[in-house]
């Protein structure tokens, strides 16, 4: 019942059929009822005709098409009203109250309490409009109609009502008469109760919505109203519960509002219902999003709003208004707030990973937005914002779609040519066949088109286009960052040292950018590559140049970053070289120098070892001079640093020696020179260029020292290497990568702590057995860690002692206190008479 009344609310009073007053039949029952309840008819006389007309005109304004008809209607209506007024004047005397005929044809007798009960559902605000509506119907019932006519009219009006459903909802929302009621309630209840009530209300609404979204869709408005509450907690609760509701009821498709044409078309009841439902859902969703975006700018609500937005974007990326969601999320992806940033990043990442949900469109948009923001922020953003690109995934063959197409085209052309050559000869025979073929082809095309429209599997070409768009946006961002880093380096030498103290802070995006370039290196177009390598080269060398120039100035790029540049360059080259083997001389020179600049605490050892692996181990061949130079430098390097680094270096060194047999001359005891070492007769340890260092003229005496290394694994490896002879070319089985070696050792550093005595005996035993490196790694120890442990033990012993002393002192003082109090107690006992309370207190103290 309630619902039907609501629908009626907005009905423009329909045209009354042109019936003479005489023809109006008034049933006897009616007459009788009216006579019995005279006082009820009072409202008829009090009819607010103005508001009625207003109401009518407002509704009428919406539809432009039917404007003329409406004007006519209005004219007629005015006439009717006059009639009604006359009627009421006449009739009120003898007809006092009128019953309402409901849609089912039942008569409803009005009582005083009716208006309030009508709005039971809690939408108390509807009272006024409801009243109006009832008035309308009452007014109508004055002009009595036959039952059939009435029903037809009602149906008609209901249709109109549904069409204008959306419109209505907004107007309803604007009125928000509920606030008034809520205010009253507030006065009555204490704040706490109100809070509880609101919470309960939220829960009720939420449950109702989840239970039957179709019929309760309207309560979304109420929800939204609640979210505008003054109480922060309520607003937050409301937002979150609305989020849960929306997450649940949003359909798996994008809602498209019907066009005007479609609205005019006749549709079945179900479709209408569906349309109403969808439009309501959409409008309230929109309002919700607007509220969220508004709240997102307020500091106190920011986290909640962001959380809601992120969850929504994650859950329903296919739905309408995705753009605004994305906009907010991407804006906050580089936010200084850790929680918000992490939320946004994870959302974007999941967006990239689950492309099936939205068919890849959101990915393109998100990447574009990020690129845009990076541009706007002049590459000074949080690194996390770029790191999300790492979770993008591309098809392997995306880089060469055009080639395949071209090939196909070529084939087609050839085929066509052939056909055209063949055709003239068999022209007549083929004509019929061809017409048939054409028909079938047409059919096939149509079927294909239909299938594509229906199929859920995304179009391959479409997807490829999207991916390439995404890729271009990603690389655009990367190149922008690289260029920016270069520019700032160029400007750096002039800038004061104090400014550059920020270190990596000046290029926050460079590290993730390089990582991304490394990951997507196989997708870079060859045309870009020259440029890219050039940039990387300058980046890798830029720091050292500025260091040389200014001296005091810190390198603008850290060693790790420069190493990363080298690694990326190599990866890019390697993945793209199918035919040509390019020797990246410049980068080797950079690495050669960077090895010396490495500091274990400051720089990441992982990066260095990766560089060693990528550049030295994986590369197919080196020229002799370079290999020798690196061998020498790595040996020197392994002398200086901790076991992990030196292990990695030694593994690389071994690898180099295995590959370059000529370099094993370094292992010979006499200093080389002469023809072997080329034109450079002397080893220049400070030479910048690896090719000119003349390392072949030197001897690897470092290995001898390393074989006495405290770490058994290293000493074993060193002696192993030095026993490698020039003649035999055996391949060693235990070939671990430098990265692996490094991680092994650095892990061990944390866990290992046997006393040194046992360690030594272990070493001897292990050497006797001659087991592999890894075996000895397991049991070997490190004096540094042992030292630390000893130190820790000593310190703990020291502190234990100190604590004991303190405790002793405390105990002693307590003892003294007790004894003194006991003495006093005795004294007081002797003076029994005077005091009885004091000793008690003393006892307490004791």
């Amino acid at each position, binding site marked *: 019942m309630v619902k039907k009344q609501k629908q009626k609310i907005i009905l423009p009073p329909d045209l009354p059929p042109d019936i003479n007053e005489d023809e109006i039949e008034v049933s006897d029952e009616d007459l009788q009822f009216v006579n019995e309840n005279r006082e009820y008819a009072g409202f008829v006389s009090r009819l607010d005709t103005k508001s009625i007309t207003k109401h009518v005109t407002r509704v009428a304004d919406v539809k432009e098409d039917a404007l003329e008809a409406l004007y006519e209607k209005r004219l007629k209506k005015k006439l009717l009203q006059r009639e009604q007024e006359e009627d009421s004047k006449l009739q009120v005397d003898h007809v006092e109250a009128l019953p309402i005929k409901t849609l089912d044809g039942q008569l409803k007798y009005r009582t005083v309490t009716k208006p309030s009960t009508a709005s039971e559902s809690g939408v108390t605000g509807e009272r006024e409009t409801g009243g109006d509506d009832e008035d309308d119907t009452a007014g109508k019932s004055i002009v009595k109609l036959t039952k059939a006519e009435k029903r037809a009219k009602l149906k008609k009006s209901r249709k109109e009502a549904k069409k204008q459903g959306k419109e209505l909802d907004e107007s309803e929302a604007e009125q928000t008469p509920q606030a008034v009621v809520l205010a009253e309630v507030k006065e009555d209840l204490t704040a706490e109760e109100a809070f509880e009530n609101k919470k309960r209300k939220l829960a009720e609404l939420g449950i109702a919505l989840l239970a039957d979204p179709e019929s309760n869709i309207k309560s979304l408005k109420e929800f939204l109203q609640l979210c505008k509450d003054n109480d922060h907690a309520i607003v937050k609760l409301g937002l979150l519960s609305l989020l849960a509701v929306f997450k649940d009821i949003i359909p798996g498709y994008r809602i498209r509002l019907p066009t005007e044409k479609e609205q005019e078309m006749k549709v079945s009841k179900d479709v209408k219902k569906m349309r109403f439902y969808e439009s309501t859902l959409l409008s309230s969703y929109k309002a919700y999003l607007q509220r969220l975006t508004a709240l997102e700018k307020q500091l106190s609500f920011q986290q909640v709003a962001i959380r809601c937005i992120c969850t929504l974007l994650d859950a329903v990326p296919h739905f309408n208004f995705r753009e605004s969601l994305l906009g907010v999320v991407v804006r906050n992806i580089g936010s200084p707030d850790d929680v918000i940033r992490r939320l946004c990043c994870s959302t974007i990442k999941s967006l990239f990973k689950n492309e099936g949900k939205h068919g890849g469109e959101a990915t393109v948009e998100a990447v574009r937005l990020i690129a845009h923001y990076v541009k706007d922020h002049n590459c000074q953003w949080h690194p996390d914002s770029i790191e999300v690109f790492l979770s993008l995934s591309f098809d392997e063959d995306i880089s060469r779609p055009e080639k395949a197409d071209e090939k196909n085209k070529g084939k087609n052309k050839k085929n066509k040519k052939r056909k055209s050559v063949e055709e003239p000869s068999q022209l007549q025979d083929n004509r019929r066949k061809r017409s048939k073929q054409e028909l079938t082809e047409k059919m096939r095309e149509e079927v294909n088109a239909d299938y594509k429209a229906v199929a859920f599997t995304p179009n391959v070409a479409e997807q490829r286009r999207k991916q390439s768009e995404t890729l271009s946006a990603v690389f655009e961002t990367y190149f922008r960052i690289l260029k920016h880093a270069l520019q700032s380096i160029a400007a750096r030498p002039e800038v004061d040292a104090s400014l550059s103290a920020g270190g990596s802070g000046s290029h926050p995006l460079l590290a993730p950018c390089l990582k991304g370039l490394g990951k997507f290196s196989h997708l870079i177009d060859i045309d870009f590559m*020259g440029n890219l390598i050039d940039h990387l080269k300058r980046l890798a060398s830029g720091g050292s140049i500025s260091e040389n120039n200014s001296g005091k100035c810190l390198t603008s790029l850290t060693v790790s970053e420069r190493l990363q540049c080298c690694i990326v360059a190599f990866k890019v080259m390697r993945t793209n070289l199918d035919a040509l083997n390019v*020797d990246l*001389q410049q980068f080797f020179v950079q690495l050669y120098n960077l090895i010396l600049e490495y500091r274990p605490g400051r720089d990441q050892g992982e990066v260095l070892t990766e560089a060693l692996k990528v550049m030295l181990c994986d590369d197919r061949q080196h020229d002799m001079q370079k290999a020798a130079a690196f061998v020498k430098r790595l040996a020197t390097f392994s002398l200086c640093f901790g076991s992990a680094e030196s292990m990695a270096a030694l593994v690389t060194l071994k690898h180099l020696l295995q590959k370059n047999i000529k370099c094993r001359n370094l292992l010979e005891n006499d200093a080389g020179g002469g023809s072997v070492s080329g034109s450079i007769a002397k080893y220049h340890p400070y030479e910048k260029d690896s090719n*000119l260092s003349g390392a072949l003229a030197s001897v690897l005496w470092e290995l001898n020292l390393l074989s006495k290394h405290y770490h058994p694994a290293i000493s074993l490896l060193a002696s192993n290497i030095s026993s490698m002879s020039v003649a035999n070319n055996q391949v060693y089985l235990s070939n671990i990568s430098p990265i692996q070696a490094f991680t092994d050792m650095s892990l061990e550093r944390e866990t290992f702590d046997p006393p040194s005595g046992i360690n030594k005996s272990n070493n001897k035993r292990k050497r006797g057995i001659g087991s592999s490196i890894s075996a000895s790694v397991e049991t070997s120890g490190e004096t540094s860690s042992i030292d630390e442990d000893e130190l820790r033990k000593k310190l703990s012993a020291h502190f234990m002692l100190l604590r004991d002393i303190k405790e002793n002192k405390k105990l002693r003082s307590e003892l003294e206190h007790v004894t003194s109090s006991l003495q006093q107690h005795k004294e007081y006992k002797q003076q029994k008479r005077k005091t009885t309370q004091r000793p008690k207190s003393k006892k307490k103290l004791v």
Partner: protein
Amino acid sequence: MRPLDEKETTVVLEKLLKFTDNNLQNIVYNPSHEGPDPNPGRYCFRLHKNKVYYVSESLVKRATNVARANLVSLGTCIGKFTHHGNFHLTVQALTILAPNAKHKVWLKPTSEMSFLYGNHVLKGGLGRITDAIAPGKGVVVFSMSDVPLGFGIAAKSAQDCRKLDPNGIVVLHQADIGEYLRKEEEL
């Protein structure tokens, strides 16, 4: 025999610079260990009968004892001046270019012989190439086992080489060690 005048020096050094870039200083300031002198001298350029020689200073001193007409050669001949005043490098310059070369090309074993007979280096014969080669730069050609075979001028940059078809010319031939046999009497 006389030192080069200014014009000649610039021509020679520019030629060498094409191959060596900033490694040119290693050639010019290379200390020599020839002769019994306790302090090592330098190497210097000398012009004799239109040919330019790369000679150590001690050798130059001793060569003054020989009459100009009787002096056939001294040190390493690195090239000769044509009648027009142009300077051409000869194969012997390879010994000083190879260790200081900036731009290198390694040949596959199959295409070594072709180059040693005086042909250009084609892309198909390319085993390896240093990056950042610009067209017009001097390139030293090596075998895969790092034996210098000769030198030439780059026809294409390293980037362009990728797109080149296998028969495209990468390095234009200037000199190769095959000339020691083929042009024995000229050298």
